[in-house]
């Protein structure tokens, strides 16, 4: 058997998870539809005045993205946990941290990336300026992976628990607040004529920080849950 490099392993896990998701497309679509629906409910709730909608657009899109990513979190490990694949992964000689990172990236490509791509269309519903739309998209591109990474820790800790879905939101949402603040803050900065670069830089810093630590912590959490 040839030896698998770390990045070969990463690619393998990502490819496998994407393939599995493609066989069951409904799961991916539900997250996206949920996101679109929640965002569309806000104008119905608060009224159609364009001034107000423009002001709250970034916050609404970010909160909806946060909720949509929570919704898909329990799926990150549960299928593999139920059919025993996760156990085999932990027994494998390869690095569990790297496998977890692969699962996080696959999760983001399935639940975060579609939101990033559809966000500008929803932003138009809120009458956002084109510059604000670009910043919103870029901020989501930097921020949603962090949500998947922090969420992976929560998903791993609540693996196999009853009521895990609500519990994982309770654990993860407070930890995601900085991402929400700077993500929505970037768009806010553009709207008020300032530079969004400081907000985006901080989001980028969160992304790198989370990339280094969260896969390892989530792997430890999986070990605790699987004992």
């Amino acid at each position, binding site marked *: 058997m040839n030896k698998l490099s770390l990045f070969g392993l990463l690619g393998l896990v990502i490819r496998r998870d994407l393939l599995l998701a493609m066989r069951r497309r409904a799961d991916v679509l539900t997250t996206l539809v949920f996101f679109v629906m929640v965002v569309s409910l806000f104008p119905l709730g608060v009224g159609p005045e364009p001034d107000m909608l423009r002001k709250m657009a970034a916050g609404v899109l970010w909160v909806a993205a946060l909720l949509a990513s929570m919704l898909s979190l329990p799926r990150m490990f549960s299928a593999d946990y139920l059919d025993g694949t996760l156990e085999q992964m932990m027994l494998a000689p390869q690095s569990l941290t790297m496998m977890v990172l692969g699962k996080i990236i696959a999760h983001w490509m399935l639940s975060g990336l579609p939101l990033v791509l559809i966000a500008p269309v929803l932003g138009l519903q809120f009458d956002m300026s084109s510059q604000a739309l670009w910043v919103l998209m870029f901020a989501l591109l930097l921020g949603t992976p962090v949500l998947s990474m922090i969420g992976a820790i929560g998903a791993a800790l609540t693996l196999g628990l009853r009521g895990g879905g609500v519990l994982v939101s*309770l654990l993860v949402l*407070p930890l995601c*607040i900085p991402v929400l603040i700077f993500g929505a803050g970037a768009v806010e900065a553009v709207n008020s004529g300032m530079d969004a670069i400081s907000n985006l830089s901080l989001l980028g810093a969160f992304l790198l920080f989370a990339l280094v630590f969260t896969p390892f912590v989530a792997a430890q959490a999986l070990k*605790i849950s699987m004992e």
Partner: protein
Amino acid sequence: MRLAINWFKYSAPSTFYGLAGKLIPFFAWPAAILFAVGLYIGFFVAPTDAVQSEAYRIMFIHVPASILSMFIYLIMAGYAALGLIFKTRLSSMMASALAPTGALFAFISLWTGALWGKPMWGAWWVWDARLTSELILLFLYLGFIALQASIEDPRRADRASALLAIVGSVNVPIIYYSVQWWNTLHQGSTIKYSGTSMHVAMQQSMFTILVACWLYVIAVALARVRTIILERESNTQWVKDLAETK
């Protein structure tokens, strides 16, 4: 001759149970006395504030509760980390014994803050940086308690919640500064405490109540850890031999 002291003697739940029982009165009584003294100074000795008149007196409860709610989270995370790293059961039990008290103080801090805010700022709640981060701290406590409550196996519950507490304590400074930044970005600092130096009696009262709260926390944590020990060790012989379980 070397004096051999077994430093780890009281890290066993069975020996700590008795020690904790003996220690509780030494913390509980001073706590009660200092509470009474501190409240007396706060209500009868401390003068009326020039700016805030009588309403400021809620500070004597509010400030110690806020300080302790933050300290307890760090201590809880520290105990949880000890339990996770060294697999000492008692440390994990101490972490779970501290969590409800920490949540209680966070709640008291928010509640008294609202009561103080109404006469001072004219609103029960403002999205001030400190209020917001205190609210998030309460959420973190509730997450810790909820995770522990939903896992049946106590060992997994201890280790899972320990990991959560550690992740939370790394995140606390980030949350704190981002909330502060968010606050200054959105609204100018509308709320400023008057810069006048505090009267001596006010300081005395606040400090006395702070110490009283500390002692209360220790006494309550010890009492709670005793019940946790009894619950978890209920199958062991030493628990069955205890006078109070017969």
